[in-house]
């Protein structure tokens, strides 16, 4: 089992080792004394590395298998037929996974986060035990999913229960340690029992039958299918619908769920429970608006897939034989990503309004002036561009890696992922070096405009070449090129204009040239130009 996990996630473990190593270096560095600002940056970098690496670790050791054809997630089916006792099938991955995730957490907490100033309010043993229970419950629910109805609700409920149990030692009313550990013990035992019962029933073939609720729902759908025969207006509309169904709803669902349920619960119920004041509204707003940006960065890696459960990344047969150009397929994906980003941000704003209403501190409108460069008088005018900027940035994050991902070759996607990681770290190192060494900073600032212009020229050059090649190979139409190039130009002008306005508002007009060039650099064009060619390579192997 360990061999299987290792074999499937070698690259991921390598990067996890790198992030842990970086975290350890940051911790040592801080211990030797650095400026306050640098200490904050080191802490943020370490925390980001920890969160990213740890989420990956959880997914590796969850030991679930996805069946894209049957659209289900569950225990690896091949093992159910092995001559092993169900108890062993349950316990082995739970123990291995549990050991890995708790050990890793302890290492991060003890050797990286604690030296960086993150002193957990709880006993390390308690945190590990709560995490272990949560991990086991998620495993049990993921393995036994065919038997669980309303799975999303059950998973959210399990998460909330663990959150509540986790903060038990800090609750205003006293709960004896015996009760605390007893509750946690019951959760651990019930997770193993639930997994064992679920797997046992599945081995007896009792997992796939529809429930009465499912049957009723199916009947309703049947009635709807009989009456609803609305045709798609075009092939593009049909492809957009398919993309939306498979990918589009994920980001708005997660962000909207957090904004409309998670944050209100956490800030206005959870904080009261532990006797802490809710954070100020601007912090809530920033968290709600930054959340989709971070989430879109994480989800962007899978956007190139045509089915998020598909592990092969190949273009599914039922799409590859449709009479649509590769450029058309890519455009449907881009449109889906844009619609998904827009809906996400609108839901986040709605969540913020809800939080404001719950807090009784006015509405969004009274606070919106805080985040716009136009001041509170014209906050409505200021709000719209700010929202548009966030939508564009979320969209940009979703599209990160679309060019490499559409090749359908995992090694290329991994290679580009590693390259992006290395480039990001290189950029951080550059910024750090500029902060530490004044000479270097001077030289960098002297050459920065030229560097940015060269990078932008290279980007435009690569894009023109890719567009021309795609046009010659019928991979893309002139109209699609017009949309992509036009969209990039308009978005670039908007972002540059907005950023320039902020520079003026901050009395930093000297930064305008850099933010203008930077705006055109960060918005994807070469990736979009390469995408149809990459898809052609995937489609015509």
């Amino acid at each position, binding site marked *: 089992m360990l061999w299987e996990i290792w074999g499937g996630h070698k690259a991921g473990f390598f990067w996890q080792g790198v992030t842990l190593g970086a975290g350890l270096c940051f911790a040592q560095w801080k211990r030797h004394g650095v400026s306050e600002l640098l200490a904050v940056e080191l802490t943020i970098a370490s925390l980001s590395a920890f969160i990213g690496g740890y989420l990956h670790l959880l997914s590796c050791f969850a030991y679930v298998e996805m069946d894209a*054809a049957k659209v289900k997630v569950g225990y690896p089916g091949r093992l159910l037929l092995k001559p092993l006792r169900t108890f062993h099938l349950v316990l082995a991955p739970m123990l291995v996974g549990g050991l890995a995730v708790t050990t890793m957490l302890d290492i991060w907490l003890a050797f990286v986060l604690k030296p960086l100033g993150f002193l957990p309010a709880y006993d390390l043993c308690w945190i590990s035990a709560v995490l272990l229970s949560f991990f086991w419950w998620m495993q049990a629910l993921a393995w036994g999913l065919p038997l669980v109805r309303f799975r999303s609700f059950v998973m959210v409920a399990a998460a909330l229960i663990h959150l509540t149990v986790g903060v038990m030692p800090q609750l205003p009313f006293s709960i004896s340690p015996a009760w605390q550990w007893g509750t946690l013990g019951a959760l651990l035992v019930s997770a193993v029992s639930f997994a064992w019962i679920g797997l046992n029933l599945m081995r007896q073939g009792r997992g796939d039958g529809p429930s009465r609720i499912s049957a009723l729902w199916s009947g309703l759908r049947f009635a709807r299918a009989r009456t609803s025969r609305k045709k798609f207006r075009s092939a593009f509309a049909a492809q957009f619908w398919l993309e939306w169904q498979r990918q589009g709803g994920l980001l708005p669902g997660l962000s909207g769920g957090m904004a409309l349920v998670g944050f209100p619960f956490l800030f206005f119920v959870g904080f009261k429970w532990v006797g802490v004041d809710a954070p100020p509204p601007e912090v809530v707003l920033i968290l709600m608006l930054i959340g989709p940006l971070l989430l879109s960065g994480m989800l962007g890696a899978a956007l190139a897939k045509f089915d998020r459960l598909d592990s092969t990344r190949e273009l599914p*047969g039922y799409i590859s034989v449709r*009479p649509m150009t590769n450029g058309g397929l890519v455009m449907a994906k881009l449109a889906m990503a844009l619609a998904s980003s827009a809906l996400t941000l609108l839901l986040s704003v709605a969540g913020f309004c809800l939080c404001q209403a719950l807090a009784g501190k006015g509405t969004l409108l009274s606070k919106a002036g805080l985040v716009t460069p136009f001041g509170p008088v014209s906050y409505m005018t200021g709000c719209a561009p700010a929202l548009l900027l966030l939508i564009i940035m979320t969209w940009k994050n979703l599209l990160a890696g679309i060019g490499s991902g559409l090749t359908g070759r995992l090694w290329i996607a991994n290679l580009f992922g590693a390259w992006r990681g290395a480039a990001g770290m290189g950029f951080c190192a550059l910024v750090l070096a500029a902060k530490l060494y004044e000479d270097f900073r001077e030289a960098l600032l002297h050459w920065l405009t030229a560097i940015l212009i060269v990078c932008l020229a290279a980007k435009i050059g690569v894009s023109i070449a890719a567009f021309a090649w795609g046009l010659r190979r019928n991979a893309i139409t002139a109209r699609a090129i017009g949309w992509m190039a036009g969209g990039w130009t308009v978005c670039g002008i908007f972002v540059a204009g907005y950023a320039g306005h902020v520079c003026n508002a901050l009395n930093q007009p000297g930064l305008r040239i850099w933010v203008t060039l930077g705006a055109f650099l960060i918005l994807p064009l070469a990736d979009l130009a390469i995408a149809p060619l990459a898809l052609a390579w995937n*489609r*015509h192997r």
Partner: protein
Amino acid sequence: MKFPSPSSAEAVVAVSDLSRHFGSKAALDEVSFFVSRGSVLGLVGENGAGKTTLIKHLLGTLKAQAGGVRVFGLDPVADPVGVLGRVGYLSERRDLPGWMRVDQFMRYTQAFYPGWDEQYAGQLLEQFQLDPAQKIKTLSQGQQAKIGLLTSLAYRPELLILDEPSSGLDPVVRRDILEAIIRIVAEEGRTVLFSSHLLDEVQRVADHVVMLQRGRVVLNGRTEEVRGDHISAVLAFAEPPAKTPVLEGAHAVAGYGSEWRVLFGGSRLELETAAALIGARVVEERTPTLDEILVARAGGKGS
């Protein structure tokens, strides 16, 4: 690139010296053939012979490493829209979106083909007894073949490509599918290319047959001519041969004692001459089935 020209410019599919390697393995080796408009071509061969690989080249999902492919005179890789808009395809692996409902998949597919005939689609839906509200992932393999066939037939494509349409199907469904194919071909004079390892099916339906073996075309012609070019015969020996007799022109020789059954490629006169050379005489003969020809050739050297 020279394409094999049929008797006229009516070739819907033209494949010329097509070669494809996966690593060191040759999946297709200088394959050449054409399919003329209005014909039903059966692509046969044992597992791994290269049938699906060949079909993928016709659809443009695989790119020719050597040689060329033209469908309706177009290169399916260079002009996928031009080719795929006129082709109906049923995949061997079915390749259907399990998460969609039957009606959703029909609506989705319909959007790509302006010629979609709603009335015909409804008729097929009823004939195949498919529930439009059912999720595709819950359909049986046979039902999945039916929905795949429905969505590839409903826009009345000029060329219908079916990759192992009978795979995993029960005989009743097989008949349903074959009847549908025969109906559209008979009624509208369109072209069908289908691969199968069920030779009785091919023999019943196809008017042309191309047999692949280890990536090479070993037989290509009208079904009846291919069968007519072979003889299944029983040879009698005066004295039982000590070892398996070697008959020139035979693809397979099996039996024991003084009577041996052979599958011979050639005319009756050639068979008699060859038999006489090894001291045998023909005591029984008939036209072999495609199945017998394939088995004999697959068991032989592939020549």
